[in-house]
C-alpha cells in the first residue's frame, strides 16, 4: 500500500545528479559562449548607454518639450499634453528626474526591441498555422514563468547589468505584440484579401498594402500592452543592475521607507498612464476611416 500513500518519485541521489548535470551543463555553456554572446549584445549595450546619457544630460526643458511634442503628435489633445507636462514637472520637482530618464531609456529601448522582433514573428505566425502552434506555447511560458526563474540563467550568462535587464524586460513584454500582430492579420476580412488576390497582388503587396494596414489598430494595441508590461518589469530589472525608478523602490522595500517607495511607485504609474493614453488615442486615430460619417 506504500505505492498509494507515497508518490513514486525519483531517488534522491538521481535527482541530485540530474540537477547537477543541468547546472554543470549550463555553466560550461556559459563559460564557452558567454563572452561571445556578450560581444553579440555589445552594440545594443552601447546604444542603451548612449540613449540613457542623452536623456539624462539633455537640459530638462528640452526633454519636457520633446515629451509635450510626442504627446501632441500621438494624441492631438491639449489636455493630454498638459497632463503629461505637469506629471513630469512634479516628478522632477520631487527629485526623481534622473531615475525617470533612466527608466524611460530602458523602456524605450525594450519597446523598440520588442517591436523589431515581435512584429515579424507575428507576421510569420499569421502566415503559417504550424508556426502559430509552435510559438503560442512559447509565448505562454514567457508570460507565466516567474521572472526570477529566467533571471538566473540570464545573469549566469551575461552577469549583472543593462543587457540582462533588457532581456528580462523583453521576455516578459514581447508576447502581447506578437500575439496581437498575429491576431490582427488573421482577423483581416477574407473578402478584402480575396479582392487583393483577384487584382493580382503579390505576397508583399498583400502584406503591406492590405494585411498590415488593416491589422494596425490591433498591432498598436499590442505595442501599448508591451509598453505597459515593460514598465511593470522596472523594479525586477533593477535587481540585476538596471538604473531607474526601480532602484529606490527596491531600497524602500528593504528598508521600509514608505514615502520613497510611494513616490517612485507613483512616478512609474504616472509614466504608464501617459504612455497608455497617448498610444490609445493614436490607435483610435489610426482607425478613423472605419467611422461612417458625412455621407448624404
Amino acid at each position: 500500500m506504500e505505492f498509494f500513500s507515497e508518490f513514486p518519485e525519483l531517488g534522491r541521489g538521481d535527482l541530485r545528479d540530474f540537477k547537477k548535470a543541468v547546472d554543470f551543463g549550463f555553466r560550461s555553456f556559459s563559460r564557452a559562449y558567454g563572452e561571445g554572446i556578450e560581444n553579440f549584445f555589445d552594440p545594443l549595450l552601447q546604444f542603451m548607454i548612449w540613449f540613457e546619457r542623452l536623456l539624462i544630460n539633455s537640459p530638462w526643458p528640452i526633454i519636457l518639450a520633446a515629451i509635450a511634442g510626442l504627446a501632441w503628435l500621438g494624441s492631438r489633445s491639449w489636455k493630454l499634453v498638459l497632463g503629461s507636462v505637469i506629471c513630469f514637472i512634479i516628478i522632477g520637482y520631487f527629485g526623481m528626474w534622473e531615475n525617470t530618464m533612466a527608466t524611460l531609456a530602458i523602456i524605450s529601448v525594450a519597446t523598440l526591441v520588442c517591436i523589431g522582433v515581435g512584429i515579424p514573428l507575428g507576421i510569420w505566425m499569421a502566415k503559417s498555422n504550424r508556426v502559430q502552434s509552435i510559438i503560442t506555447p512559447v509565448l505562454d511560458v514567457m508570460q507565466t514563468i516567474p521572472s526570477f526563474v529566467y533571471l538566473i540563467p540570464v545573469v549566469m550568462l551575461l552577469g549583472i547589468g543593462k543587457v540582462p535587464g533588457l532581456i528580462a524586460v523583453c521576455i516578459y513584454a514581447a508576447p502581447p505584440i506578437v500575439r496581437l500582430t498575429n491576431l490582427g492579420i488573421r482577423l483581416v476580412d477574407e473578402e478584402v484579401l480575396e479582392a487583393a488576390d483577384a487584382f493580382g497582388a503579390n505576397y508583399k503587396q498583400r502584406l503591406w498594402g492590405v494585411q498590415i494596414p488593416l491589422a494596425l489598430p490591433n498591432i498598436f494595441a499590442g505595442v501599448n500592452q508591451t509598453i505597459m508590461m515593460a514598465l511593470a518589469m522596472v523594479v525586477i530589472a533593477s535587481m540585476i543592475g538596471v538604473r531607474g525608478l526601480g532602484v529606490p523602490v527596491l531600497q524602500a522595500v528593504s528598508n521600509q521607507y514608505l514615502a520613497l517607495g510611494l513616490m517612485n511607485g507613483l512616478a512609474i504609474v504616472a509614466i504608464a498612464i501617459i504612455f497608455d493614453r497617448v498610444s490609445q488615442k493614436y490607435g483610435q486615430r489610426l482607425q478613423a476611416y472605419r467611422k461612417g460619417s458625412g455621407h448624404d
Partner: protein
Amino acid sequence: MTDIKIEIRDLYKVFGNNPEAAMKHVHAGISKQDLLDHHGHVLGLRDINVKIKSKRIQVIMGLSGSGKSTLIRHINRLIEPTEGEVIVDGDNVLAMSTEELRDFRRHKASMVFQRFGLLPHRTVSQNVAYGLSIQGISEGEAFERSQRWIDRVGLAGFEQHFPAQLSGGMQQRVGLARALATDAEILLMDEAFSALDPLIRTDMQNILLDLQEELHKTIVFITHDLDEALRIGDEISILRDGEVIQQGDPQSIIMKPADDYISDFIKDINRGRVLEVRSIMEKANRATGPKMGIKTPLEDALQQLVNAGKDSGAVVADDGKTIGKISMGNAIAAMARPDRVNEGPRYK
C-alpha cells in the same frame, strides 16, 4: 461577334480532405448527397462545360449552394479545381505559373464582389486606382486614369471619402469602377448587385448595361435573381447542385424550359415583358398590320395590335425587311404559363 472568349471544360470541384480519391466515386456517378454521407466530401461542381462568348454578358444563375460563386472563382483561379480546364483566349488558366496567373489577374480579368471587397483604409480614388497601383503604375498616372471611371460611375466629388462613409450602392460603384479601371477585357461579377436594395439594384443594372454598350467587355455575371438574369443576360446558364442544367439565351429558356425545376423557376416571371416577338413569330416574307422590331416585348406588341385594331402584325428586321408575322392569339398563348396550356400541372 460570336467567338468564344472563355471556355470551361469538364470542370469538377470536390471539397474535402482527399478530393482526388473522391473523384473516382464522382466519375462513377455518385449523387452529391451520397458523396457527403458516405465519403465526407462535398461535390461543389460536376462536369461543367460552358462556352462564354466574347463581348457578351453571360449570366450564371442558381440558388444558394448551387456552386455559382465557386464556378466564377475558377475563371481567375481564386479556387483550384479538382479536374478540368478553363481556357481563356486559348490559354489554360489552370496551367499558368504564379507569375502568369498574377499577370492574368492584373490585366485580363477583374472582379466585382458581392460585399464589395473594398479596402476600408483607402479613399475612393485610392480604391479605384488599386488595380493600377498593383500593376506598378505610378500614383499620379493611376489617379488620372481612375478619375475617368469615378466620373463614369457617378462618384465625382466623393474621391476623398472612405468606403465606410458611402452607402451600399455607392460602394458598389466604387467596386465597379475599380474593376473597370484596369481595362481588363473580362469582368467577373459575383452577385455584384445582390446586396443592394431593389431600386438601387435596377440603377446599377442600368449603369452596367450602359457601360457595356460602349465598352463591349466579356462579362460573367453571377446572380440568384431570375429577373436580373433575364434583364441583363445575353446568355444564361442555370446551375443546380453543381451541375449546369440548361444554357441558352433568355428567350429559349423561357420558351423551352429543360425540366420541371426550371419551369417552376420561371413560372412567376412577367412573360409579356420578357418574351420578345422574335421568339413566337411565324416566318413570312409579307405580312399586314402594324410593324414592329424583332426585339419588341409581347406586352408592347399586343398594345400596338390593340391600338391599330388589327389581330396580326408584321415583324421587321433591323434593316426594315419583313421577316415574320405575329398574331394576337399566338402572343396571348405564349404569355400564358406553359403548365396551364399543357395537359395538366407538370410540377406538384
